[in-house]
């Protein structure tokens, strides 16, 4: 019986595998294919390239608009990361200790900014922030990004805290550690990977955020995505591809750091016997 099925099955597997690999190629190729074009000596977008040059990167480095956008993005991203991780981290700690039916409601409210389409958030914050003087300046954008970042911190850290074995704290206490020592020596080290990876999530969210920022920002507050948008919207130049390539490099860097952290936290969890 099985022998009769074997060729058909092998063919089906082969086709699935081929489709899967094609799918992966479809996913990655458009991103990878633009990277070499950013080194094109001429300003067009097809292969073969007549020569290689760094002139588009030079152009970005010398552009006041791009430099200002980078500065704004970094200021907003870092401020948002600090505030959202702190505020969201405290909330996750509180949520993990709450024994009440309110817990589900609170989680729902705290993660709602992640669910609602960006354009609605943008409209709401624009209408609400303008009279409060939070439109057209960086603090307004930082507040908006913090609200958008809190859900990621709450989700990541709540999951990590659920897996945290509270017996470890009891063990520390029974061995004579005070609550602060127990926190510092047991909880903080074990939570660090989750904390850092949620901070990275927040930073990426802020760094990539476009629509809410575009409603709140004046020309002085342009961030990298907005600068990128106006480039793509008006006329795609190789400068945009150079910027895109830098973005992709930053993404790879972040992806690798999160992956390293995840492995580290798995290893840590394994070492102290916390269930993964």
């Amino acid at each position, binding site marked *: 019986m099985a022998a009769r099925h074997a060729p058909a099955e092998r063919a*089906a597997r082969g086709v699935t595998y081929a489709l899967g690999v094609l799918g992966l190629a479809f996913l990655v190729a458009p991103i990878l294919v633009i990277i070499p074009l950013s080194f094109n000596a001429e300003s067009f977008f097809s292969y073969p390239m007549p020569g290689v040059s760094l002139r588009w990167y030079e152009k970005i480095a010398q552009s006041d608009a791009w430099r200002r956008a980078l500065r704004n993005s970094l200021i907003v991203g870092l401020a948002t990361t600090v505030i959202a991780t702190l505020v969201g981290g405290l909330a996750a700690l509180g949520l993990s200790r709450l024994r009440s039916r309110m817990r589900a409601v609170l989680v729902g409210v705290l993660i709602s900014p992640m669910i609602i389409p960006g354009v609605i958030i943008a409209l709401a914050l624009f209408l609400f922030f303008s009279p409060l003087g939070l439109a057209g300046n960086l603090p307004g954008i930082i507040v908006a990004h913090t609200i958008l970042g809190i859900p990621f911190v709450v989700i990541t850290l709540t999951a990590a805290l659920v897996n945290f074995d509270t017996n470890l704290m009891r063990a520390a206490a029974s061995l004579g550690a005070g609550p602060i020592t127990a926190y510092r020596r047991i909880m903080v080290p074990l939570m660090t990977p989750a904390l850092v990876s949620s901070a990275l999530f927040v930073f990426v969210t802020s760094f990539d955020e476009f629509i809410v920022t575009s409603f709140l920002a004046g020309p002085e507050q342009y961030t990298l995505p907005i600068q990128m948008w106006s480039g793509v919207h008006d006329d795609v130049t190789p400068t945009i591809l150079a910027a895109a390539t830098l973005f992709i490099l930053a993404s790879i860097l972040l992806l690798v750091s999160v992956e390293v952290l995840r492995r580290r936290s798995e290893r840590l969890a394994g070492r102290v016997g916390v269930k993964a």
Partner: protein
Amino acid sequence: MAVHGQATLKSELRRVERGRNLRALALVAPALLFVVLGFVVPIALTLYKGVENRELVRSMPLVTAALRQWDGKGLPAEAVYAALAEDLKQGFTQRTLGPAGRRLNLEITGFVSLLQSSGRQLAQRQETPVSYAALMAEIDRRWAEPRIWAAMKRAAAPLTDFYFLYAFDLQRDERNEIVNVPEERRLYVDILLRSLWISLCVTAICLAIAYPMAITMTSMRQPLANIALTLVLLPFWTSVLVRTAAWVVLLQREGLVNGTLLALGLVSAPESLIFNRFGVIVALSHVLLPYMVLTLYAVMKGVDPQYVRAARSLGADPWQAFRRVYLPQTMPGVGAGCLLVFILAIGSYVTPALVGGRHDQMIAYFIAFNVNQTVNWGLAAALSTFLLAVVLALYPLYGRLAGIDRLRAS
């Protein structure tokens, strides 16, 4: 005595529990404050703008009060005309007719100039007329038309369904009945249907591409499986703008895809691949594909291959084993992935705005358009409410299928 002791113990425990919960709540408070004040309240206020009707009462208070008494049939009484004349005169000299004019202009075009010119002429007259109704009709004949007064009556109500009707290409006629807007002004039903249709297409394409991808990834050995996962996560971590920019470069007239097609002799002249529906669907599918793959992969990893082997050993052919045994076990992933991609697609703004043409823009674009270009916040709010309703209706289903914390599984 024992019973008493038990009762105090119980209340003592409850007290400790309450204290614990309060301390926990204090930790949650700052985040809650941020989200409620900076998010829940603004959203609620924004949605309220979709029914708010305060322009007329603000700039023409007398006639608004008089109109609220009127039954809305035919033409109003002399007192309403007198109130109108007074409001117009005041409004013209103090230059406060603008908002009322813009609001009424949405009902009937030409209202801005009707208010302004009537106000100017009234401001020049000193004598008290015998009949305000006659005077107003003399200043502009439109003041003797019932449809003008029906529009005034609608704009004078405390709340309005105008924007919500408008979002579905409907309006109220002079008898206050809901009718379709004239053919040439119909726009929004088409936009709503188009948004739903594009999102459905994108969801179907993502599912078709992601399903074999996720199967392949599950069957791969290490380190190949990890490499594949990294390749899926890379676009996931890359800005939507970067990915959309890539598609603009690939699909444009002198772009890479056209260049390849020409070189292979598959086309004789460059095809238009961008600024049309095709471009939007391709680029949006690419942008949302990682969400589908990751959702399916998470579920497929949990499917025990023993079941398929058992089905095969019991005589099922590969197709039967897939359809009757494997597919049903992956259905939660299929459902969750489709809902997630659909939710993200229907709210998308950046990709359609950059790779779509004029007839491929979706709801989100028109929400932004009505805020930034036409400054019609009521309509933007009504469209937002529709979009929010779709998302909030689908989200609980998704939550049940996927578990909320898997939304950004990495």
